[in-house]
């Protein structure tokens, strides 16, 4: 059976074939080696990146928002430490039991309770559920009492916005609230820094300066495993707080404005006539922005939204009003500048029995009995409509609109600073042709001369107009954020042809407040230190019919919506003016009775605080 030669043959075959196989093996191992080389040496960086991407998760923390300060450095929108309540489901033995306990301790509503359970289903066991954004002190201490029984529940210190002056700054600053989808889509910066629950500015300066206020996130880098569980913290990159912004506003004056506007709908703004700094700017009614921080509840929201006085509207810059007689200084100035009249130009006001008649239309003065013979000063002082009908007829709307625009009417005062700032409207013949497709008629010029008709202004525009009259007719740029100065080439550019004309207007405005028969004579301050000059205005909300004229109702007898808006523009102190103001009380009746008395109270405080402001200014420059 055993055959030596056959064995040799077999062994020859097997050795030959072994050689082939061994060559194949070497080839394969060489192939594997080159594959390893390609993966580990050549493409190492690529795979290293992929591996890091696998294992490293960045988690951004809520950035600390920059603060707002008033002119004197008081915080008006700050950051507050709040206690949040977190649950980590994984650490909880019986989730339902713990949440029921919390419900009792915190007095959570059934809806909030359900919300927690809904959220539990969405997240992984080791992730965190925020039960409460903002524990009240009472809740916090109560939870802390039971904390040893509530394993898996913890209180966490967090930072949230706070507005210490509540409704005082709402319209200037706006408010912050949780970012919604639109905020993220609209602002790349928010998208970049987004963390769940991040609060962003929704209106006002909070929104305008979102990008500088936002700050940089703290970044935590975690190593996570394949299931996304955090294993360890790799590093912690400290972010930075957003930039703090100083406003030009004086909180004391702002507070007074709020008080003066209490229970009224309207606006007050006060401006430094040289620097354009806004000293105060309040629109009433206002609301408490702190309500929005943790999501406003439905009842509060409905209350704000459905208030007929429209608290959500910043009337100072978004409200459009007929300027009424407050336009008269500009009309008079325009007439003087264009040499249509001289200060001695006289018109006979005959009262309601003999109104001005043009093409079948009648134009009444507000005073039934008429003013008799009035010149410019008397016309301004007593706000004689007949006088202004006449000079605007002579002036024409185009020349009037030119002057009005020069003084800041008809365009945005703050530029892009506030969202939705209204331009108002200063009509002229070309505008009407383009916008309405009709020719201008003389009657429209006449009523434009007393600030009715098409003309529409915002309170801030009236304030700017007054300020530019008060400073002797030089262009200024209002500002509300300190150190946010843009370089304007035409700053302090004269707006007049003849400075004497400005003086005449100033004097006329002075007489209106400080001389007998002046429309705001009752609101005068005799002390020269506080003495101010102003012009009242009463803007009709609806057309006065013959019937109304006969009835001659008192303000309180007219339904609220039909009452006239009361306006007042003023500057002071008269000798050496510093500040200008515009006051509007919606449906307040006449400017002289409602708006001007507010100015009296206002000027006292403004001028009292002038020194303080000056000294703060000196200090401020040292700081920088």
């Amino acid at each position, binding site marked *: 059976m055993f055959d030596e030669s056959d064995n040799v043959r077999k062994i020859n075959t097997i050795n030959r074939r072994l050689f082939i196989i061994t060559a194949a093996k070497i080839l394969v191992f060489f192939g594997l080696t080159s594959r390893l080389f390609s993966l*580990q*040496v050549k493409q190492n960086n690529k795979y290293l990146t992929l591996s890091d991407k696998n294992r490293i998760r960045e988690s951004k923390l809520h950035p600390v928002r920059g603060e707002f300060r008033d002119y004197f450095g008081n915080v008006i929108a700050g950051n507050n430490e709040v206690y949040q309540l977190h649950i980590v489901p994984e650490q909880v033995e019986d989730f339902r039991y713990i949440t029921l306990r919390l419900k009792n301790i915190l007095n959570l509503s059934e809806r909030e309770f359900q919300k927690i359970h809904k959220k539990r289903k969405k997240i992984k066991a080791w992730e965190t559920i925020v039960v409460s954004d903002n524990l009240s002190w009472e809740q916090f201490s109560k939870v802390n009492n039971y904390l040893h029984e509530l394993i898996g529940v913890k209180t966490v210190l967090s930072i949230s916005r706070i507005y210490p002056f509540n409704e005082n700054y709402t319209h200037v600053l706006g408010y912050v609230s949780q970012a919604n989808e639109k905020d993220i889509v609209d602002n790349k910066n928010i998208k970049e820094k987004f963390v769940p629950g991040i609060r962003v500015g929704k209106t006002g300066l909070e929104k305008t300066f979102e990008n500088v206020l936002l700050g940089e996130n703290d970044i935590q880098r975690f190593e996570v495993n394949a299931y996304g569980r955090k294993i360890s913290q790799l590093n912690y990159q400290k972010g930075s707080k957003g930039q703090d912004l100083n406003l030009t506003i004086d909180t004391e004056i702002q507070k007074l404005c709020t008080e003066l506007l209490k229970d009224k709908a309207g606006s007050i703004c006060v401006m430094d006539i040289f620097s354009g700094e806004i000293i105060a700017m309040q629109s009433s009614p206002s609301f408490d922005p702190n309500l929005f921080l943790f999501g406003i509840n439905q009842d509060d929201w409905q209350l704000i939204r459905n208030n007929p006085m429209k608290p959500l509207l910043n009337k100072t810059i978004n409200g459009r009003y007929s300027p009424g007689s407050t336009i008269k200084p500009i009309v008079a100035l325009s007439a003087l500048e264009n040499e249509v009249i001289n200060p001695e130009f006289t018109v006979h006001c005959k009262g309601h029995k003999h109104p001005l008649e043009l093409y079948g239309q009648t134009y009444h003065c507000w005073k039934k009995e008429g003013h008799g013979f009035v010149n410019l000063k008397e016309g301004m002082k007593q706000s004689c409509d007949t006088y202004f009908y006449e000079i605007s007829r002579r002036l024409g709307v185009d020349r009037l609109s030119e002057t009005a625009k020069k003084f800041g009417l008809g365009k945005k005062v703050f530029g892009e600073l506030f969202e939705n700032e209204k331009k108002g409207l200063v009509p002229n013949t070309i505008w009407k042709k383009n916008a309405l497709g009709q020719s201008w008629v003389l009657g429209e010029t006449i009523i434009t001369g007393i600030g009715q008709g098409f003309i529409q202004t915002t309170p801030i525009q009236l304030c700017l107009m007054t300020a530019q009259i008060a400073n002797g007719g030089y262009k200024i740029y209002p500002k509300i954020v300190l150190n946010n100065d843009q370089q304007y080439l035409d700053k302090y550019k004269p707006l007049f042809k003849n400075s004497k004309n400005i003086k005449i207007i100033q004097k006329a405005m002075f007489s209106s407040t400080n001389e007998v028969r002046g429309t705001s004579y009752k609101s005068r301050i005799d002390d020269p230190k506080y003495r101010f000059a102003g012009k009242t205005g009463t803007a009709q909300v609806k057309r006065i019919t013959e019937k109304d004229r006969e009835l001659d109702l008192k303000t309180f007898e007219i339904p609220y919506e039909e009452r006239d808006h009361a306006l007042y523009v003023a500057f002071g102190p008269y000798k050496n003016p510093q500040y200008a103001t515009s006051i509007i009380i919606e449906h307040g009746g006449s400017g002289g009775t409602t708006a001007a008395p507010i100015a009296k109270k206002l000027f006292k405080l403004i001028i009292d605080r002038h020194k303080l402001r000056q000294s703060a200014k000196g200090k401020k420059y040292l700081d920088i």
Partner: protein
Amino acid sequence: MSFNNFSHELTLFQKIKNYDFILLFCILILGITSIFTMYSTDGGEVLFHTKSHFVKFSIFFPMMIVLSFINIKYWHAGSYLFYVLILGLLVWVALYGVTASGSRRWINLYFLNLQPSELMKIAVILCLAKFFHRIRTTSTNSFTSILVSLTIIIIPSILVITQPDLGTAILISFSGLIILWFSGLRIKYFIYSFLIFITSLPFIISFLKPYQKLRILTFINPERDPLGSGYQIIQSKIAVGSGGITGKGFLKGTQSYLDFLPEKHTDFIFTLFSEEFGFVGSILLLLLYSIIIYRIIRAGLISRSFFSRLFCFGFSFAIFLYVATNISMVLGLLPTVGSPLPIMSYGGSSLLATMIGFSIVLSASVNHRQNIL
């Protein structure tokens, strides 16, 4: 039988003198490496896998040494019996086996779950080596011998495929076919059957189970389902690639430590090793396997008996095949088929089978002058 000068029993001293210590040492090194790698898969703690692997290696390594002192002729004598025994176990598995993760592969022996298909990898080599040892060159290519040898291969393969365990079945078939190759089966048969295989490939694919088709599709483009079937291979490549030249360091492989690697104890253990020890470590591991393969071939080359020679060459090819398929698989060069890395991978049956194979090789080298009739 008068020329049988060398058939007398060797003394213990002669046996030790003949002993292949290099192979023994390499196996030991590989075993120790595997225990440390297992320790790393447990996240740097001595947990279940480390303990279990350590215990198994500590039992099987001495067992291998003891078995290696059995004369090769007894292995030869018991070959058929061993094959039939394992085949019996496979049938047993098919009937009463333990099912885990969708396939019935194991026999519950109370102290361990035995996977007979792993043992079959050795048994089929042993059986065919004996079969061809007895056959003359002239009758190697006869119809009967081809039919018998193919039957020896196909029966266990079919049993294993039905478990289902395609990977192991392929490895069993290849281990068997390589014996046919070494025994001198005409090369044209191999070429013909290869051509037939290629042409019938579409037909075979239609018989594959959906998950197996998916594996092939995933192999062609792992990115098509990065979180599903492609996940393993993508993560494996990331782990290997991120290892770099010198690796991330022992116990510092983030991919495995953070559970990104699937099956890291078993089929993907090379990935972890490669991530932690880098290109250098991988090459050294490949080198270690190469030395082992070389020593096995050497044992065959010095053997007088055709049986020893055939078995050693066959077994060396089997080891090569396991290593090559496993590493190719984790490097994304082959579709994922379940094939363990010899000794390194966790798995008692595979370790047992490999150790039995080594003990036969060692026995062959001790008794290389032994003639077998």
